[in-house]
Every structure is written in C-alpha cells, then in structure tokens.
C-alpha cells in the first residue's frame, strides 16, 4: 500500500484534541457506512487519506430505521433520513468496531442516547472497548426526558450529556460534541466545553423537508437533515463563529465539502479538521482526491496546515461575527 502522504509532497499530519491524525480529513457520521463500503475505494488505514473514520451513530438498542424512501435529492444537496439505523451498541462492538480495529483505522464512535442513563451506559461500555480513539456526541439526539427535543437545542441538557459522557470515558479518549444548527450555537458550544467536551464538531445540517411532488405529503418517512453543497455556506459561517467565540477549543468543521479547496476554506475559517460526508455518495473515492487537492492548495500557497487553520480570522478586515447566543 503506497503511502499517500509521501506522494502528496505536503505534510498533512495533524493533531486534534490530542489525537495524532494522518490527515485532517474525517468521514462524517452516517455518510461512510460501516467502513467496509469505503474499502474498495479508499485505503482506510493511516497510509490513506483518512485522518479518522467517524462511525454511523450508534444507540444502545438496535434501530431498524423507517420503511420507504430515506433519501431525496434537493437543489445542490440531499435530504437524508435513515432514522439512525444501526445494530445497537452490542452489535457494533461485536462486528463493526473489531473490523475497523483490525484494519488499524483510527475510529471516532458517534453515539446517541435518549436518556442520561443511556448516554452513561454508552460511554461506559465504549470506554472499556479497544479500538475507540474518540467519541462524538451526537447532540441532534432526541431527549426522551424532554418530549424528544434535541439535546443540542439548549445549553442545560447539552451540559448534562457532556458531563455524563466525559465522566464515564477514560481521560485518554477525547470527547467531541457535535452541535446542531437550530440552537444558540455559541452558548451551547460553551456549555459543552465547560462540561468536559475536548472538542466541537460543527457540520450538522438543519432539519429540512421535501414533499412528494405528486401526493404533496412528506417525501421521507423520518425527520431529515440537509446535506451536500447547499449546506456549505451556512456551515462555514457557523465554523467561523464558533472559532471566533472559542478560539482555543479544538474544532471540526464540515458541511458540503467536495474538494480540497472546500476543505481549505473550512480550515481557514477555523476548523482544525474537516468532515467529508455526502460527496462520498456520488464519488466514493473522494477522500483521496480531496487529500491530494488540499495538499496541492497548501503547496501552491506555500502554507502548512498549522498556518492555514484560522487564517480567515487573521485577515485585516474580519467580517463581523453574529452576536453570541443568536441563532446562527
């Protein structure tokens, strides 16, 4: 297996919340399957373009997902609603995680609980499982103790979740909090960090709706979020704002990244690493392409990764960030 990084001519090694990454490219949860599906197209270990593989979101109990259509195309994007179909923690630990560990894939496990007790159990059991390099807390999860409202919509439940997850994981396993856009974003980000989050992930799309053009009823059976290029501008804004407010906190950005230039923009807006998601649906080999393009973009500008992270904030006339606490 050729060492991709040696061929890039630019060093893409990077650090995120204490994790040494081969590249700053992560997969986005729910867009890269179980890892196996990517294998025909991309080297998954550290010789390849992936800094870390982020799993689909795992829940304590298996979820079958809804019947019927789950994905619909929209202008420059898509709506994706799989109802968190997953084999449950036990199934994941028995099959998906060992497969990733065997291939030496740096693995970030995305988790979602519905009660604080579930979050705690997820964290506890992942904490004793080999092959978990980091945990991503999916704050779009519905809080069953609050009528299904997403945890990440408010500061208090976000803090509670992060507190519980951080408490029940070993110190050496970083906890990343994946924020949701429909929230007082910066306040929620602060609540996550104050309660133990080692890093933040900004890349979740807003909830969205498409109607079947014939029947005029919702085209998808489950609540959907927007993915794809349509998300890029709003996501970049959110990354910029979170970096402005919390300049010292490790930050992962994403949303509609399809090229090395897109990845570069997210890094410049303040992301230490980026997540690549739905572009894989159309171009399953995109990660290697994006890594090569990113290396070329850096080389062309004679910049290192460290130079470029947050570069947009160091320009002469920075754009005015939105007021903290406002809906970003």
């Amino acid at each position: 297996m050729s060492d991709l990084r040696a061929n890039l001519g630019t060093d893409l090694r990077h650090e995120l919340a204490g994790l040494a990454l081969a590249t700053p490219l992560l997969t986005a949860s729910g867009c890269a399957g179980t890892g196996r599906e990517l294998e025909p197209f991309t080297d998954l270990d550290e010789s390849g373009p992936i800094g870390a593989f982020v799993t689909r979101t795992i829940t304590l109990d298996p979820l079958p997902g809804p019947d019927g259509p789950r994905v619909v195309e929209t202008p420059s994007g898509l709506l994706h609603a799989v109802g968190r179909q997953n084999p449950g923690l036990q199934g994941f630990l028995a099959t998906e995680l060992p497969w990733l560990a065997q291939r030496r894939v740096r693995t970030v496990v995305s988790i979602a609980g519905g009660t604080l007790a579930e979050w705690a159990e997820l964290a506890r059991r992942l904490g004793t499982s080999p092959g978990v390099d980091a945990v991503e807390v999916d704050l779009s999860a519905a809080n069953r103790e609050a009528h299904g409202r997403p945890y990440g919509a408010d500061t208090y439940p976000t803090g509670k979740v992060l507190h519980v997850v951080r408490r029940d994981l070993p110190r050496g396993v970083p906890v990343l909090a994946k924020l949701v856009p429909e929230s007082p974003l910066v306040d929620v980000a602060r609540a996550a960090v104050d309660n133990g989050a080692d890093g933040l992930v900004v890349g979740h799309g807003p909830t969205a709706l498409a109607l079947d053009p014939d029947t005029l009823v919702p085209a998808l059976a489950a609540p959907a979020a927007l993915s794809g290029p349509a998300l890029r501008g709003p996501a970049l804004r959110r990354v910029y704002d979170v970096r402005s407010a919390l300049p010292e906190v490790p930050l992962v950005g994403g949303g509609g990244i399809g090229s090395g230039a897109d990845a570069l923009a997210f890094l410049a807006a303040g992301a230490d690493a980026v997540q690549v998601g739905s572009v894989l649906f159309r171009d399953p080999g995109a990660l290697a392409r994006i890594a090569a393009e990113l290396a070329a973009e850096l080389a062309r500008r004679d910049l290192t990764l460290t130079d470029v992270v947050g570069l947009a904030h160091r320009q002469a006339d920075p754009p005015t960030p939105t007021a903290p606490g406002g809906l970003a």
Partner: protein
Amino acid sequence: MTTPGGGLDGFDQRSGLDQRSGLDQRGRADQRVVQVRGEVLSVKRVGAHHLVTLVAPGVAERFRPGGFVTLGLGGPLSGRALPRAFALHRARPTGSYGGTAEIVLTVTEEATRWLAAAPAGTPLDVVGPLGRPFALPKEPVTCVLVGEGADAAPLFALAERLRERGCLVHMVLGADTEAALFGVLEARRATRSVTVATRDGSVGSRGEVAAVLPDLLARTQADVVYAAGSPAVLHGAAVAAEAHGAWSQTLLAPRDVPMPCGTGLCFGCTVPLVGEDGVSRQVRACTEGPVLRGDRVQWERL
C-alpha cells in the same frame, strides 16, 4: 422448501441479515468494484427503450448477471449530489474500445432523458459492478426467467450463464404493450421456450406476466424462478415459485427501490425482509441485493 440440485451457488443462507452482515463478507471481498471515468459509446433505440453502451474499463471483468452500476451524470445534471443506478444488461471485457458495459433504459424523467440523448464520447463517472448478483444453481436444473419490459435486460446474460451450466432455460417476457417488450427475438434464440404476455393483449396472452407462471412451472417442473420487474411482478413470481416449491431470485429495479449511493454508504435503499431466524430486518438493496430471495422479502411493505 426443498433444495433443488444441491443448492444455489453463491446462494447466501444469511441473505439480508443486517445485524449480522458484519460476519458475512461474501460478495464484497471478491467483488472488487472499480470507479472509472467512462464515456458513452453508443445509444440505440430498441422498441420503446434505449440500449446504452458505455466504455467502462474494469467493470466487465467482474460482471456477474444481476449486478449494476452507478453513473454520475453530466451536463445539466452534473450538479446533482447523487449518482443514478442502472442494472447491467451485459458487459464485455474486450473490444476495440476496451471494456464496455450495456444498460437498457426507458426514458421517464430528466436523468434518463439526458442519458438517452447523450452523444458518443460523453464522459460519465462509473462505479461498478455493484450488488449481489443472481445465485446460480450448482446442478443443471430447469429455470424459468420472468421479466417485465426493460427490467428484463439482465436476464439475458443470466440465461447464457445458466445454459453454460447445462440448465434448461424458459423465459417469460411481459410489458404493457408490444412496443415495451424487450428482447423477445433474442429470447427465442437463446432459450428453450418463450412465453409473452402484454397487459393490452397486443401480443401473447393478455394480462400480467406473473399470471402465466403457475401453468409454466407445473409444465416445466422448474426448480428456480428468476424474476426482474416491478415489485408486483417480483411478488407474483415469488408467490408462484413458493406454491410450486421452487426457489425464487428476484431482482429489484433501481426505479422501484432507488439506490441513492449504490455502494452501501447511505443506508437509503432498504428493503424489509425476514431473515433465517424469522426476524424482520431492513437490508440495503445495493449491498444485500439487488437480487434477493423472493420468499424472504416483505413485499407488502415495499
């Protein structure tokens, strides 16, 4: 249900077990999907359909009947976030243009209209061959292949593989009208018998294609039914096969179960089916299928 002729080659007893798919790498380790920049070689009208030949090096070498490709479409569709899946008709590894792959499409909307009108040389991103192909019998048994319209296209390469194994092949082709039939002449050349049914009665028997199956299965004593068509046709074929005591292998059309990515990444193309353990699961049509055991699929939920 009895196992005809010692079972089906490549037949997966665990088909559709999402929870356990991690233990089963069949169809993946040996699959070696390729992602290539291909191009349109030719587009020919065939009745109401279009036969599109693509230059797609590497796809044909790994092609097995029932497999499919995804195409990243260009022109006004190049901004689309998703590719489109198409069942493979045939694939040829050699030729003056390198490996080619053929698909048969019916123009129904923007994407198929663009592809049917694409001039030779139009570039396309091709990923394939994808999916779990038709399982083949180990013994030379009698097979009935039933197809509807252009969905029948993958059955012709299947018929060749079956005949190479000494199987007796009977084919049933149906459509709304005579013009919408696909491959009747070729079927007459390549199979033991051909039965035609059209909904308007313009040729062959009038009515649903699956309706001719009970008689045909009884007459031919078929061991396996292979079906390609709409869910109604597949369901009908599965029911007829079960009643006769035959296996059924049903090929889902991307039109009916859209495969947003085709590679298994998105979990968007799920089909409810009952596993060996009697538990219902959502399995991906693109990785566990698009060929599934007809008796396992919960057709009424599709």
